[in-house]
């Protein structure tokens, strides 16, 4: 096993990886930019090295500096986390060339899965379902009609030369096909000087469900089931759960998706942790979307539902150990949900809200897991994404997990900046969410129907009372104001104890 590992990342994921390394008795090396000198991941590490100014292009994305740091500190392996260099094939290759183990798949796997079209072809070759479509030009409406006979409506006509929705038509029935084809072709001609169209099955309000995989270098690979990631905003996941309410309700679906994901990964000679993403329609038919060749942000829900430490498994197989799990060892218990807590204002178009955290109260108690890199007095930097923490809960059922998450969110208090905590509380109270009717447009539709986050009526008078009390206490008075202030405090405390 490794004696020392460098984490080529920052923030919560660096802290997350370090926690497991420490449990494995492996020394940790942090890297940091100017903005992160006092960040938790630096303070927590055994060793740390500055790698450049705040912009990530000058620090966390500098392969040369990170490898220099690894050499100087004698790290035997590098964990890339997610984001930054984690899916950079050149970085994986450079690590191996420098004699260090990249804790992830081979550079070749990263490269092959990095191309969407190559990945789609690989998936098709491996027999995994892809969104049905003929990606070459149709001779006329008859070709689309034949396609519809095979795959059904609705379908989507798209301009071969297209983009931005131009030359695109949705078709729901045979009767609409001819005119839709004419309109789309003429629009494509006008927009791109090319009337050619192709046809694709339209997946309406799809779910985004992904399968977690992990394999060793000897061809052993298991899946850890699915994560439902349909709650997205601007194509960014904000809430994830395991199991998926849909998969949980459909016998055999997890196994079918898991098998399909394993086939794709095996055909790519994949090892270490990876995630195969699928679009899923209302009937539960699933289609390969892409493969992510790294640890996912939302991996904690899988860890909570299966009880396995994915980072530990990553490190073990990277060190050349054989996977100690067989598929039958993986079992799922209860329900896990994660909320990504961002520094952003959910009532002002989710505008980022960097700044100083003036006070912080973290949720605790049964079934609560918090992966964060935040502390009281920390200044949320403007240089990186505004993820403050991932709050995850586990409970026996989805319903009780929702109640637990609501409870934890009520305990969570971050002062000084805006966060999306109340936004999650509203989603968790939403009937559609509670019924498990999820799809990737869920948040957009939810924002349309959401009511203001209105307080119970009694709270406003309490707020008025506290404001008056606070205002009086902090009002500048005579020179002895300071002494009086603390006196008020004393009295307040004494009163509270009576």
């Amino acid at each position, binding site marked *: 096993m490794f004696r020392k590992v460098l984490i080529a990342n920052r923030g919560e994921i660096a802290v997350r990886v370090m926690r497991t390394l420490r449990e494995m008795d492996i020394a940790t090396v942090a890297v940091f930019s100017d903005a992160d000198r006092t960040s938790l991941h630096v303070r927590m590490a055994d060793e740390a090295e500055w790698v450049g100014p705040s912009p990530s292009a000058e620090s966390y994305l500098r392969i040369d500096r990170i490898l220099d740091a690894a050499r100087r500190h004698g790290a035997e392996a590098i964990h890339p986390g997610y984001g930054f260099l984690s899916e950079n094939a050149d970085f994986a290759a450079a690590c191996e060339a420098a004699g260090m183990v990249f804790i992830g798949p081979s550079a070749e796997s990263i490269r092959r899965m990095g191309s969407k079209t190559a990945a789609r072809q690989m998936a098709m070759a491996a027999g995994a379902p892809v969104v049905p479509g003929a990606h070459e030009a149709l001779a006329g409406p008859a070709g689309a009609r034949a396609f519809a006979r095979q795959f059904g409506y609705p379908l989507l006509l798209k301009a071969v030369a297209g983009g931005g929705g131009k030359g695109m038509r949705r078709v729901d029935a045979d009767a609409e096909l001819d005119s839709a084809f004419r309109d789309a072709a003429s629009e494509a001609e006008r927009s791109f000087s090319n009337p050619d169209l192709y046809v694709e099955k339209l997946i309406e309000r799809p779910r985004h469900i992904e399968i977690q995989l992990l394999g060793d270098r000897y061809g052993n690979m298991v899946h850890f089931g699915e994560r439902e990631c349909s709650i997205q905003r601007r194509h960014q996941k904000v809430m994830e759960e395991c199991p998926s309410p849909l998969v949980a309700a459909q016998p055999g679906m997890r196994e079918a998706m898991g098998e399909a994901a394993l086939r794709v990964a095996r055909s790519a000679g994949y090892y270490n942790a990876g995630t195969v993403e699928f679009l899923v329609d209302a009937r539960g038919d699933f289609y390969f979307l892409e493969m992510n060749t790294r640890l996912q942000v939302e991996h904690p829900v899988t860890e909570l539902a299966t009880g396995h430490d994915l980072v530990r498994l990553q490190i073990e197989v990277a060190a050349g150990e054989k996977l100690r799990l067989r598929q039958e060892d993986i079992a799922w218990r209860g329900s896990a949900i994660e909320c990504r807590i961002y520094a952003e204002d959910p009532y002002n178009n989710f505008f980022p809200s960097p700044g100083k955290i003036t*006070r912080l109260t973290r949720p605790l108690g049964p079934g609560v897991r918090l992966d964060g890199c935040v502390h009281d007095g920390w200044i949320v930097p403007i240089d990186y994404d505004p993820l403050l923490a991932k709050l995850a809960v586990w409970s026996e059922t989805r319903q009780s997990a929702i109640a637990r998450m609501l409870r934890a969110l009520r305990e969570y208090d971050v*002062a000084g900046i805006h966060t999306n905590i109340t936004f999650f509380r509203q989603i968790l109270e939403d009937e559609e969410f509670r019924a498990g009717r999820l799809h990737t447009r869920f948040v957009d539709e939810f924002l349309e129907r959401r009511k203001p986050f209105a307080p119970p009526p009694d*709270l406003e008078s309490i707020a*008025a009372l506290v404001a008056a*009390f606070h205002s009086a206490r902090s009002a500048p008075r005579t020179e002895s104001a300071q002494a*009086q202030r603390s006196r008020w*405090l004393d009295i307040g405390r004494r009163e*509270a104890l009576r």
Partner: protein
Amino acid sequence: MRLSLDIDGRTHEIDPEHGGAQIAAVEPGVYSVLMDGRSYEARIEQSDARIVVFIDGYRFEVQIRDPRRWSRQAGRHGAEGRLNVVAPMPGKIVRLLVAEGDMVEAAQGLLVVEAMKMQNEMKAPKAGRVVSLAAREGATVAAGDVLAAIE
């Protein structure tokens, strides 16, 4: 004697005689409120004139109909000479501890004010003579009222 506050365009008259609330400062900007047997925790974020109160994740923007300017004016005398003791919030004088003309030590108790069901002892800002004592037992005072002056 009331303090007027606006929240969301609604005016609240805070009447300390009527509240029945116990407020305890837990840490700077955090208050624990007990009222009618219920417990609330409130957090304040203040920037200049704006006070934002958070209770249970709900956000209340509060406009205070400026008692502070009042108290600032009332309290503006140098450390030398005469120093006024000013009511920090609306309340009721429950007890006088000194009389006009008394010599007092710095931080000696002068009178007791009750506000929001809490009794607060007002202390002498410096050693000297009580040159005026406007406060009368049982009288209600507004935030910013001059209660006594020490010279």
